């Protein structure tokens, strides 16, 4: 369970986040939405332990987060910068396993298994920069999931992809989430995406000093699919509610 307790964050005198209190139960896929520049990425970096907490506290299973938590994985929007170009696709995916003390052969087979799961069977020997944007982000997702994280943080992961690729990856994420049951915090500025992907949507207000202005459970019936789900009256109503909150 991830808990944020009156979390506040600032850059110098400039307040970024104010009094954020949230509890994310295990296995939940929480979407955080807000206008551009409201501090969504800062929130994610704070949870990841990449930024020190200024006010309040972050805890995972009751343990306060002071550094980078164990069994954490992050997917950033900019796959071009977060994948390592000097490593092959397989080596990129296998890299986090080095922290798990696995042997070379095991790392390799785990990486191949993950690549297959994200639909990149046979791409292991290529290099990230030889792949399309969508494929690169699949590599990043495979790398994030390879060591079975208990918490996955995603910072606008599909923000720079075309619509078709984005929808494919949203469905991939939902499949993976169903299969692995990982707790996911998914930051996006896309209202539709947040409702489609999330079990719950939290809306942050515009900065400076962003607060939570809406905390909405997403109870959509059945297995989600891009055409059907988006046409449901429940989906349309939820989207409108989130949209109103984002616009303030």
């Amino acid at each position: 369970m991830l808990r944020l307790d009156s979390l506040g964050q600032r850059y110098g005198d400039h307040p970024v986040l104010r009094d954020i209190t949230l509890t994310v139960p295990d296995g939940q896929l929480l979407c955080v939405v807000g206008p551009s520049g409201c501090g969504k990425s800062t929130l994610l970096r704070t949870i990841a332990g990449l930024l020190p907490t200024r006010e309040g506290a972050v805890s995972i299973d009751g343990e306060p987060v002071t550094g980078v938590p164990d069994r954490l994985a992050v997917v950033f929007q900019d796959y071009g910068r977060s994948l390592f170009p000097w490593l092959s696709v397989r080596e990129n995916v296998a890299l986090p396993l080095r922290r798990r003390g696995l042997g070379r052969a095991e790392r390799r087979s785990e990486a191949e298994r993950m690549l297959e799961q994200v639909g990149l069977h046979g791409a292991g020997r290529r290099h990230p920069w030889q792949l399309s944007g969508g494929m690169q982000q699949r590599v990043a997702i495979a790398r994030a999931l390879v060591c079975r994280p208990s918490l996955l943080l995603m910072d606008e992961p599909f923000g720079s992809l075309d619509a078709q690729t984005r929808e494919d990856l949203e469905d991939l994420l939902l499949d993976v989430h169903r299969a692995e049951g990982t707790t996911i915090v998914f930051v996006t500025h896309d209202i539709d995406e947040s409702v489609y992907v999330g079990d719950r949507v939290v809306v942050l207000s515009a900065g400076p000093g962003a607060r939570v202005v809406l905390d909405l459970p997403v109870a959509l019936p059945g297995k989600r699919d891009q055409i059907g789900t988006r046409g449901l009256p429940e989906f349309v109503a939820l989207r409108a509610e989130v949209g109103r909150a984002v616009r303030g």
Partner: protein
Amino acid sequence: MRRRQELLLGGLGVLLAFGLCEAVSRAGLVRRSYLPPASEVLARAVELAGDSVFLEGVGATVRVWALGLGLACAIAVPVGLLLGSVPLVDEAVRAIVEFLRPLPSVALIPLVSLLLGSGTETKVALITYASVWPILFNTIYGLGETDPLAKDTLRAFGFGRLSVLVRVELPATAPFIAAGLRISAAIALILAVATEILAGFGEGLGIFIAQSGLATDGTRDVLAGVVWAGLLGLVINSVLVWGERRLFPWTPEHRGRR
């Protein structure tokens, strides 16, 4: 296609320059003893390839070049990594570095000869001194250019400071170091030949050039020696460029060239 065009234009340029030198000399615009026809210089340069004494000299020059450059690398890369990753040390030595860097290495030749004699030590010391700077500054610059997101990615997977240095900063900086090495390789060659010319005795390509300059009608030999020095530089540069392309295919300037 582009490559063929480059080769063609390059060849054309060389031919033109060659023809011009040849014509100027043959037409008597310059006295032959000052500027022998290019064909004669070239013929002499080819002839020197069969001269074992000359080749030994070239070998000696290449040896001090390699030794000096290797030492420069061994010093500049670790120091660059230290200065680039510990700002405190960088600030502390910045003034010293900025004082030493602009000193023209060639001007140090007499001083160093006085201290170390005019043998191999002097040559190597001067080459090392001159070649340290490009490698050092490129290492520091490359470290500074490492993408913070790449470092954060590794940190988020639970890797520590040392892993970030070895797994991200070092590979990301390697192309910069290699580019610095290529600049230094040329400087090292200049220093090797120049030190020999100024020292005037011993063995080496520079010695050959210096001694030919003293002989009557030695211009042809001087120029043939210069052709060899240029050729050495060309070969070294080509090998290094080729190596960079092989080792760092991911850098933006190499991506399209595979």
